[in-house]
């Protein structure tokens, strides 16, 4: 894609924002639409749509700098394939609910896969962004280097902002070498035992990469230097899982294709984010968790209040699937909410981009 083409597309989008402002019409940013099933990702009928896929392609990939700079509309699959050629990866392994997932959507949603336990999140990996904000400004924050404290960290502010502040024209992400070895172990444990054991292991120098507890089984993936993975496997015990079986499981967990995430009609799927050591109770009709117990999934009838339950554990919740609004997460104190509203004014004073998941439902 030439600079002229890129500039033409950005100018078009700026015009669309201008029109929307004049007509007081909403604008929605969409990429591959892979998160359109989430309750807060709907597009109103009267919205002007900015389809980010018009701006795609890898701008720069330098394996020895551990950085890739990608236009927002680039399919995640394309980026991952490119990195794999050099034996590198996006270690936060973001979910691909379907094949269309774009890099812009990955950053805007701020969602990370099960490997966040050992390798960090998309927030950890973001180094810089180029943004088209609601005022029509093209702004660049951060950059392509790991250490950069010039100006406020707007790049990370945009992680998990769900398209409410602007269009991610391009993002720079820190990449990592694929660890040389991996192994998965399986244990028969209750949820309480599993979380306790995981938190104990996480306090030791072990190459933990991902963990899942479901249906009385704990699955732990190790990744790292060959020697470290071998040693840790022996130390952890349990039962070794064959590589292909393990890989398939972790892919399904990453993309929520595992049967766990299939919810029958009339039920609600909740994602709770709570302190990992908060007491574990198998609430709802079905319950499972990722990591050491910080991300808990609950399938429950519509009358179960996941918001109140998460708040009681010191965390918060998303109504992920099933039943309509409210999707509202948890109330922040008034002073924080007021700052958030003013931060929104910085980038989208006319509220063109809507509330995302942050509205009152």
């Amino acid at each position, binding site marked *: 894609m030439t600079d002229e083409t890129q500039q033409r597309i950005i100018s078009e989008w700026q015009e669309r924002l201008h029109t929307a402002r004049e007509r007081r019409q909403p604008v929605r940013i969409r990429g591959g639409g892979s998160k359109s099933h989430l309750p807060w990702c709907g597009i109103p009928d009267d919205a002007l749509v900015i389809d980010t896929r018009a701006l795609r392609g890898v701008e720069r990939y330098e394996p020895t*700098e551990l950085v890739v700079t990608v236009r927002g509309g680039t399919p995640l699959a394309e980026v991952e394939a490119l990195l794999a050629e050099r034996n590198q990866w996006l270690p936060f392994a973001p979910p691909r609910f379907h094949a269309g997932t774009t890099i812009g959507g990955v950053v805007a949603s701020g969602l990370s896969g099960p490997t966040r336990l050992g390798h960090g*999140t998309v927030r950890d990996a973001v180094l810089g962004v180029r943004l088209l904000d609601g005022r029509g400004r093209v702004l660049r924050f951060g950059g392509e280097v790991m250490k950069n404290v010039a100006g406020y960290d707007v790049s990370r502010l945009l992680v998990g*902002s769900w398209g409410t502040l602007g269009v991610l024209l391009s993002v720079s992400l820190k990449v990592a070498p694929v660890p040389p070895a991996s192994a998965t172990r399986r244990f028969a444990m209750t949820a309480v035992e599993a979380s306790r054991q995981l938190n104990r292991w996480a306090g030791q120098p072990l190459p933990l990469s991902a963990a899942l507890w479901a249906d009385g089984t704990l699955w732990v993936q190790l990744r790292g230097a060959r020697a470290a993975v071998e040693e840790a496997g022996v130390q952890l015990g349990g039962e070794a899982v064959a590589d292909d079986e393990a890989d398939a499981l972790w892919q399904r967990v990453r993309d929520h294709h595992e049967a766990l995430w299939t919810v029958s009609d009339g039920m609600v799927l909740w994602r709770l984010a709570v302190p990992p*050591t908060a007491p574990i109770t198998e609430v709802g009709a079905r319950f499972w968790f990722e990591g050491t117990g910080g991300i808990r999934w609950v399938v429950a009838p519509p009358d179960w209040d996941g918001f109140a339950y998460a708040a009681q554990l010191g965390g918060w919740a998303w109504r992920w699937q099933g039943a309509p609004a409210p999707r509202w997460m948890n109330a922040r104190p008034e002073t924080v909410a007021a700052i958030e509203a*003013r*931060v929104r004014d910085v980038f989208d004073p006319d509220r063109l981009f809507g509330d995302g998941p942050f509205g009152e439902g």
Partner: protein
Amino acid sequence: MEAVVDRARAWAQTERHFEVDAEQLRACLLAVLPADRVLCAPEELAPYECDGLSVFRAQPLAVVLPQSEDEVVAVLKVCHEMGVPVVPRGAGTGLSGGAMPHPQGVVLSLARLNRILAIDPVARTARVQPGVRNLTISEAVAPYGLYYAPDPSSQIACTIGGNVAENSGGVHCLKYGLTVHNVLAVRGFTASGEPVAFGSVAPDAPGYDLLALTIGSEGMLAVVTEITVRLLPKPVVAKCLLAAFDSVRAAGEAVAAVIAAGIIPAGLEMMDRGATVAVEDFIHAGYPTDAEALLLCEADGTEAEVAEEIARMKAVLEAHGATEIRVSRDEAERLRFWAGRKAAFPAAGRISADYYCMDGTIPRRAIGAMLEAIREMESRYGLRCLNVFHAGDGNLHPLILFDANVPGEWERAEAFGAEILERSVALGGTITGEHGVGVEKINQMCVQFTPEEREAFFQIKAAFDPDGVLNPGKAIPTLHRCAEYGKMRVSGGALPFPDLPRF
């Protein structure tokens, strides 16, 4: 040092002036704080005139030393009502003048809020007050086999509150991240004294990531009074490999090759010959002083893991022209290898009356080009420069040697530094990797950011602090300042009158 004093005065003149009745301010502070928490006499204020960048000095109207959150709030409310600037301060080890007092303001020292409030070894977190020293956290959690990863070179003295304000790094960032990767949550107060809390000990937090904005904000968005940090399990063992090269370019290429081989060293440092010779004279670390460049490469983990990684690093470095490689045989030798690198700043202080430490970051591939450019600048400015790098993440710390008592040398050193920073931007990097902008690099912000980007920064500042009283005038330059600076810059970076103060 008159020229130096002028610098801070000139900075203040370019910034907004606050009308403050000093006597009334002191009376109001004494009304809400016990007398031993309020310093007003010139001799009491003197130690607070500057931070680690001592060439920028200003005397505040008062220094307050609150011992509780309530006292912090009381100070903020007094200052907010009177429209008085507040400059938060930790240990004062910062290197960019971020904690330089405001001449019409109050310095809010958080040094006495120095308690570790809670350690949770199971959740691997510690909740601490901002005045707790960085190293103290690691010492306190060592019995649990845990530590706090970011380790700025000032870690014996610097506070965690200051680390949050600056998003401090250290020598292990490539593998373990910066402050922003290791702080889970903060609580504190806005400029008007309203309580705020950002972040969470849960895996993520609802709403916008205001924690990320706060970390590295140089005390301009909120006053942080409590910090929850993530703790990591201490590696069983660490080993350090020392490699010598006959050119800095070869060393730079070897660094890239280590990364390309899929190795993320726990630490990866580089020193040029000038730096090596200076520290060897001082510390006797056993460095080969005939090498043009030295690399220190550290691996940590379990015994087997470290052995595997050291072997891989060694093979790569040998293949990329290392003229000598030594692997630390024991912990004492590892510490000796590091002692030299960690003594680079005092070693510079030993061979020169003064030195000026810079802090740009560049892509690793540009390290060779940058060192060659610095060499050319040395002859043009007539000053020597020692080079130490966090090579793993491309963060440079050139140490420009000068003598403040020789007329014109400080100005030349400053222009030299500014040119290094502007070259960093041109090479695809940034003007500050970990020391912050403060007052020092405020002009270079005009080079790195467009007027619209700087406008957005001011708007963010106003979203947190609408009255603009928290550490005003730091980090983000006004349009006016950038216009003035633009007039002074000429193409090629050299100033028309390098011997003149630049304001």
